[in-house]
């Protein structure tokens, strides 16, 4: 069913640009220092290393999605620790402190298991970073669900990141902006909402995520009519 124009406020398409800065704590040269720094680093720093990895220039498809797991694997050469950190899904935690607690628990457990504290050579330290996100208006507004379906292919990857990923830390129920807006339309596009809810973006790059959103939206809205 095509969503009709309603009195609901239109969806303002915004975009974001992120710049990286040093994270406010010293770099870590061993597992114990990593644990100590994570315990006190700013929330934005933890968020950056778990979630903003998506927007960073990368060359290869990383083996793990968060920087701590990558460092444990590539530099500490502790595969067990890397896998334990790698399985953490940051989006299921109600806030950054809960995520921090989980990470510290894993690190404490590993510290109690290893016969010696693993170190890295000079130059391979873990450097803590954080992002500064500037949100700006694209001047595009969407009135209906169909508008969203049609506009998605033209959205930048950073706009997709802002509305579908970053939204999860600023919306009360931890969902994305598209879903929040669509669910509030007078005639809810149920199929589209279901399609978006089924996208597991954790293992996708931003361009893969955009493809998945576009395909899901087009499948749900073939020919301008929502398919149920």
């Amino acid at each position, binding site marked *: 069913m095509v969503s009709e124009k309603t009195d609901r406020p239109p969806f303002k398409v915004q975009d974001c640009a992120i*710049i*990286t800065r040093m994270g406010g704590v010293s770099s870590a040269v061993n597992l114990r220092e990593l644990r100590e720094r994570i315990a006190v680093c700013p929330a934005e720093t933890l968020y950056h290393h778990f979630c903003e990895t998506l927007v960073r220039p990368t*060359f290869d498809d990383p083996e793990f999605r968060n920087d701590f797991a990558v460092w444990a694997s590539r530099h500490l050469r502790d595969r067990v620790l890397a896998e334990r950190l790698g399985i953490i899904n940051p989006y299921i935690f109600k806030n950054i402190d809960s995520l921090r607690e989980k990470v510290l628990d894993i690190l404490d457990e590993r510290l109690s298991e290893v016969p010696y504290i693993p170190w890295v050579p000079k130059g391979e330290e873990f450097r803590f970073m954080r992002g*500064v996100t*500037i949100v*700006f208006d694209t001047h595009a507004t969407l009135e209906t669900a169909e508008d969203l379906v049609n506009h998605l292919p033209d959205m*930048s990857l*950073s706009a997709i990141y802002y509305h579908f990923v970053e939204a999860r830390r600023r919306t009360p129920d931890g969902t994305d902006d598209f879903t929040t807006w669509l669910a509030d339309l007078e005639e809810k596009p149920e199929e589209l909402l279901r399609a978006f809810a089924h996208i597991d973006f954790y293992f996708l790059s931003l361009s893969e995520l955009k493809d998945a959103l576009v395909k899901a939206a087009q499948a749900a809205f073939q020919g301008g009519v929502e398919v149920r």
Partner: protein
Amino acid sequence: MKGLKAYEDVAGLVAVSQLRQLADDLEGTKVVHVNSTRVGGGVAEILVWLVPLMQDLGLDASWEVVEGKEDYYKTTKAFHNGLQGKPVTLPPSKIEVYEETARQNAERLRPILEEADFVFIHDPQPAPLLELCPKRKGKWVWRCHIDVSHPVRKVWGYLKSKVSGYDASIYSMPDFAQSLEHPQFIIAPSIDPLSEKNCDIPSREIEETLERYGIPNDVPIITQVSRFDSFKDPIGVIEAFQMLTETMEAELILAGGGATDDPEGAAVLEEVQEAAQGNPHIHVLLLPSDAHRTINALQRASTIVVQKSLQEGFGLTVTEAMWKGKPVIGGNAGGIRLQVFNHHTGFLVNSPEGAALRMRELLRRPERMDVMGETARQFVRENFLLTRHLREYLTLMLGLRLGLSDRLMADQSYENPQ
């Protein structure tokens, strides 16, 4: 310099639109960049496009250059070397030359600098200007382009006293950041794909360039383009080439110009010419600083490009070669590590022997070179073109203006989308 619109084809319409949207809230902002040379070296090459494109976006941007005499450039070169870890001494007489030259430049530049909303001071040469502009009203940012990961402590100790008062600093990679109280940002450099040095050129022009310098093109050509600077290890490249040519034929080009702020270039050039003497397959070319099309042609004529630096801020010549679809054998140093990935875009090496080994490997497996070259070009397109670089400068300025929390609205009247 072309306007921003010209970049829509090569960088994408979205990337250019984003710049215009971000710049909406910076219209009319007075921005001044200051460095120590208008020609030669990576910093000048960046400012050549950065300033006009900022103007195209509606910012009131300008570029100033500090000037000095020979002993000033000798001192700042010693700074440069010391910051990159080469043992140097800085006697009081050199410090006095440095500070006196800064005072003279401050007299000339003070009105424009104190009025600016943002001042970007590039590298150590103009760093003392901050304390010499007490009525400054804008944000001052120190942009460090060099690898300061392991500086000579006394040199850094002195410079730190000049840069710690800045509102922020920028480095090309996190490894270079130092212990400073102000926010430290990471911005990788970039290239201008439409500049004379990087634009597409006809194959006839490439052939003519080789003819002009008497370089045969019937055997593989290996090229290093860089200033004649010991940190670029041109002697190590010659050693590697000599090892390679024990088993196969090739030509080596070592091409570079001088920079007006680099007084050591002539001595290094002499050393390189001596090492190359008697080998007709080694071509040492001292090019004028505006020989951009010649460098473009030489890079395109090359089978492999080398940048065997021992220390490197970023290595724009690596980016340039990758943009031209060439695999790069790079020194395992600084920003080269951000660009060269073993077996994907080239090889990182740690010795002349390593460079010789990888040259031979690539030349024996030419089919791999094509794949690597294509991968390299795509990687540059996605990460190291000037549109990304300019976006990060705009983001930084907005961030500093708005107060640097983790998420900021460019226009404070915006609300969440719903």
